[in-house]
């Protein structure tokens, strides 16, 4: 009697193990297949043709993230400001576009907008309303420094010279946003460094044509005579020694986005 019962238990146990084995086989096959699909997906992702130093699905994703970020971007949102005593000097990080042969005394800003090209002097820019701000300058590498800046808003500059609109009339951000061109491109005089900005970021109240840092005129190393400072982008967009500004509907080329970085890099 006992033997018979044990036999039945053994038979039952074997049956359970048999069912488990068949389940395992199926599940591990599905898992192996999924893992193989994952590896193949990774291979695909990393071997696509390049777009600006990146495989294009990654580039498309950055552009998707950009569209999303633009949809919730608000010009009214400002970077926090700090007491001036907290300000320091940002580190010098790369000198692309800052060639040695440069004479600040003959410098003029070349401006291309809806109308004719023109040149502007530093005095012209200093006549615009002076804005001073102490903000955190954030490098794409991950460090940040609180810096005190002074200059004119790029939006005031665009308004004063009727640059930002297709019609060539003064920009009206609130009522005629569709008249605004889409981008601003900035380059160093030697063309060695160049950045592009989307219009909402360019017209942000904390985007300055900057001529002072820490209460003193900019030094050459920090971008004299005129540099851009924008708090809504990583530091790579805050181009030093601006030679040309172009207001355009065409997406401007951008030095670091050609090296695999995001074009937008909006904060």
């Amino acid at each position, binding site marked *: 009697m006992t033997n018979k*019962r044990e036999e*039945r*238990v053994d*038979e*039952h*146990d074997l*049956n*359970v*193990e048999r*069912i*488990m084995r068949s*389940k*395992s086989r*199926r*599940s*591990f096959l599905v*898992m192996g297949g*999924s893992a193989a699909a*994952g590896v193949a997906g990774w291979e695909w*992702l990393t071997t696509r043709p390049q777009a600006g*130093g*990146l495989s294009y*699905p*990654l*580039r498309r*994703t*950055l552009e998707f*993230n950009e569209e999303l*970020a633009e949809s*919730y*971007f*608000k010009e009214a*949102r*400002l*970077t*926090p400001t700090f007491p001036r005593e907290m300000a320091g000097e940002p580190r010098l990080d790369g000198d692309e576009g800052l060639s040695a042969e440069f004479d600040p005394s003959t410098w003029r800003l070349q401006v291309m907008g809806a109308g004719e090209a023109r040149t502007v002097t530093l005095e012209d820019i200093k006549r615009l309303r002076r804005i001073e701000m102490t903000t*955190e300058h*954030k*490098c*794409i*590498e*991950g*460090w*940040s420094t609180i810096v005190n800046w002074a200059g004119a808003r790029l939006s005031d500059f665009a308004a004063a010279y009727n640059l930002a609109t297709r019609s060539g009339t003064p920009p009206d951000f609130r009522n005629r946003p569709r008249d605004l061109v889409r981008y601003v491109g900035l380059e160093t005089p030697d063309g060695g460094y160049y950045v592009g900005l989307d219009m909402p970021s360019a017209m942000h109240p904390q985007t300055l044509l900057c001529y002072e840092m820490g209460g003193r005129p900019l030094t050459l190393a920090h971008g004299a005579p005129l540099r851009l400072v924008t*708090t*809504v982008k990583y530091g790579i967009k805050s181009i030093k020694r601006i030679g040309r500004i172009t207001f355009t509907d065409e997406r401007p080329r951008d030095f*670091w986005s050609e*090296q*695999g*970085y*995001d074009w937008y890099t*909006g*904060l």
Partner: protein
Amino acid sequence: MKTLKKKHPLAIRWFHWINFPVLFLMIWSGLLIYWSNAVYRIGLGSYTLLTFFPERFFQALGIPYHLAKGMSLHFFFMWFFVINGVLYVAYTFISGEWRYLVPNRHSFREAIRVALHDLHLSKIEPPPRKFNGAQQIAYTTVILMGAGSLVTGIAIYKPVQFASLTALLGGYQWARWEHFWLAAGYVIFFVIHFLQVVKAGWNNFRAMVTGYEIATMSQSSSEKPNPRVLAKGTL
């Protein structure tokens, strides 16, 4: 007498195994980004116990000079990480699976007993529930860490658009620091999790793949075992 016991629902198994490579890639691409400003350490004042990370570590893994690649991967896989995580949490709530996972007032004491047992300091076996107190605390913590990574990630990804969030976390640099240590926390979690899975054995691991484990029932009853009924009833 053996019986098949359903342990992990199909959805949970998918969430778990999708998260594994995705989190790995998030940590990996995070390292590529972190290298550009690798400033964290464990130390006191001028005394440094450990720097994160020694140059040899970066070199050995081929990490230097891949910031752009790291960012593009991080901002690609973040979508998979977040969507998978949100679906997982939603599923545990809808299915009621959260009842096994969320600690209760007994979990902490139980977790200590489990830890003592696992360190061979106590002979009291962990309770035979699906998840013991230590597991409940660990698995719930790691989900909260996931939420933390999302929040600190947003704070450093868009510190102007979400300025109040960044400020709440102590500012831009603190948010970056928090984001880093949460990632380090996953690595610690992974090491312990891996060792525990090895220790728990094949039956336990197989359950995370198949959904079933083989349980041994006591055979004190006089009922005649019927494999077909048992198998059916528990499948």
